[in-house]
């Protein structure tokens, strides 16, 4: 089905199910329980899961397959956001023209940066992309103020033309009347589920993005990209030119990033220069490596993991900790709170950093490799002599 073999079709259907059921799955704790703060089923966070999932899927096509580590992908994210907000200002709040244009412009921008940066490989390529992204950031922040509105950030004002705005059109981002920030809330017992239009729009786009990446992984093009990572010398002497392949991968991942940036602005009609900063470029690298570079699901998992930490762990402050340990004697309570203090709240980066180090050291294949190892423990038959057989290569993207 969909040009996939049965195994991949099943995989895709599972991904579709998980994505559509996210508002239920991420809300496992009742509202009144103390664990409710670990619920992640609110629209803003779910949208981020989907959007940064798209960003990471695209980044993985470049980094995971070809091994070219770009440190400047946030530039395309920013370009996408600015494009969408400009379309709000000029045309109106329908997000569709902006998203299409965001993909076109970020693709062209990626073509330019990729053409220059891909003249070098390895660390020099990374530095070139980083330099380009920082240039873009500084341009957006100061020089190009007429276009980007500098440090205030680009937003829609009441005197903007908005030529396509109908009299009764919604005054916030929408797609043909479906307003992104609208939600349906469904209380079931003590649980509260929120079904947000914005999330479902992002989810559908994310599923499409995932499907395209799956097709690329299984295509001759994807195979060539993996060959580039392994041995460029052999590729050259096999009659293949690596440059256009890497450039195509770079542009595709740039388009994914532009789309993700556009969706950020589609959920919240703002665009700021900080979206292009190097920390944002670094974040997508972390997501991809944490989840498992070169695997299909890994980058999405990594993106979800990091966004969850950013939004949930950062909310645990000392008061919450005191409430948790209130049942202990005062001295012990204070001691435990002091012990955990650096790792939660504003210190969530520390926890994430430690986790990242552990994953890179013990699971070089990322969270996906961890999952595979656990699955293998359960699957192993005691009397099989599989260890003495030549090991079959793992199926790409499991």
């Amino acid at each position, binding site marked *: 089905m969909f*040009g*996939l*073999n049965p195994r991949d079709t099943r995989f895709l259907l599972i991904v579709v199910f998980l994505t559509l059921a996210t508002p239920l799955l991420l809300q496992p704790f009742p509202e009144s329980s103390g664990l409710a703060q670990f619920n992640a089923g609110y629209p803003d966070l779910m949208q981020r899961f989907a959007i940064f999932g798209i960003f990471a899927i695209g980044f993985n096509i470049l980094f995971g397959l070809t091994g070219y580590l770009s440190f400047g992908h946030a530039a395309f994210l920013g370009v996408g956001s600015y494009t969408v907000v400009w379309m709000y200002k000029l045309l109106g709040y329908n997000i569709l023209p902006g998203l299409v244009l965001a993909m076109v412009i970020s693709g062209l921008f990626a073509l330019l940066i990729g053409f220059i940066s891909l003249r070098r490989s390895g660390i020099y390529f990374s530095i070139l992309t980083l330099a380009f992204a920082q240039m873009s950031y500084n341009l957006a922040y100061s020089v190009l103020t007429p276009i980007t509105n500098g440090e205030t950030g680009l937003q829609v004002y009441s005197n903007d033309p908005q030529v396509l705005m109908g009299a009764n059109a919604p005054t916030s981002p929408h797609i043909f009347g479906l307003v992104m920030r609208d939600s349906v809330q469904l209380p079931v017992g003590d649980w509260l589920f929120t079904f947000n239009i914005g999330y479902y729009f992002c989810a559908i786009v994310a599923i499409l993005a995932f499907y*395209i990446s799956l*097709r*690329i992984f*299984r*295509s*001759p*093009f*994807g*195979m*060539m990209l*993996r*060959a580039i*990572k*392994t*041995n460029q*010398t*052999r*590729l*050259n*002497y*096999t*009659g*293949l*030119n690596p440059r*256009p*392949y890497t450039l*195509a991968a770079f542009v*595709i991942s740039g388009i994914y990033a532009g789309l993700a940036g556009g969706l950020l602005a589609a959920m919240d009609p703002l665009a700021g220069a900080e979206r292009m900063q190097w920390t944002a470029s670094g974040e997508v690298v972390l997501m991809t490596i944490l989840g498992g570079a070169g695997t299909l699901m890994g980058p999405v998992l990594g993106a979800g993991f990091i966004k969850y930490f950013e939004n949930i762990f950062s909310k645990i402050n000392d008061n919450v900790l005191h409430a948790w340990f209130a049942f202990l004697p005062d001295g012990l309570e204070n001691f435990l709170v002091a012990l955990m203090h650096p790792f939660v709240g504003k210190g969530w980066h520390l926890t994430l950093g430690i986790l990242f180090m552990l994953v890179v050291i013990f699971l070089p294949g990322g969270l996906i490799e961890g999952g595979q190892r656990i699955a293998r423990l359960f699957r192993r038959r005691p009397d099989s002599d599989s260890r003495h057989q*030549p*090991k*079959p*290569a793992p199926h790409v993207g499991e």
Partner: protein
Amino acid sequence: MGILEVKGVGKRFGGLQALGDVNLSVAENTVHAIIGPNGAGKSTLLNCLVGKLIPDTGSVMFDGQSVLGRKPHEINQMGISRVFQTPEIFGDLTVMENMLIPCFAKRDGAFRLHPFETVANERALNERALQMLEDLNMAEKRHMHAASLSRGDKRRLEMAMCLVQEPRLLLLDEPTAGMARADTNNTIDLLKQIKETRDITMAIIEHDMHVVFSLADRITVLAQGTPLVEDVPEKIKGHPKVQEAYLGQAH
């Protein structure tokens, strides 16, 4: 007129004249060996043929067309495949994928954007790749990672990757370098099998005399960047100039 014509090729690295005035003609459907002691310029000559180096003087014609100034992938697309001293294969890919890449390169050229096709659906190419693996007795290893193959199998796989492209000229750069005697003999048998079962032109660079004399139809002896003699193996064996180049001058 041979399929490969090298005329007056010279290459200088700083103060070192690596190649003097090299003339070489490789006839179609023969095995031509280029031998010589270390530092004779064998590898430099090979690199000039595949586009890795550009000679300072002279011309290299393949099938009537100049290869000079062309990139390695363009020269491969003309019909020249190269086997390396240490096998260059795609280690992270499976043996079958290793075979499919040259098949795609042969069919689609140096670049084709085909992100929505599926490798598994390319029946003809898959069959061809598998057939070649069967010919070289590697079919049962097709699902293995290429990096986990033994050294001899890596060499065999690299050879299969070159042959599946049906090159008009196969260049081999010291195919038995660093191999144990048994592996060397296996490689010789493999090359003999290839020579007997296919119409193929091979140019072998080698310093192991044993390999050369059991395979070559013609031999060129290179010393200090210039060809000493070119002849059939029987004549080369006892040639005084060759003895001199290999063993030094008799005192």
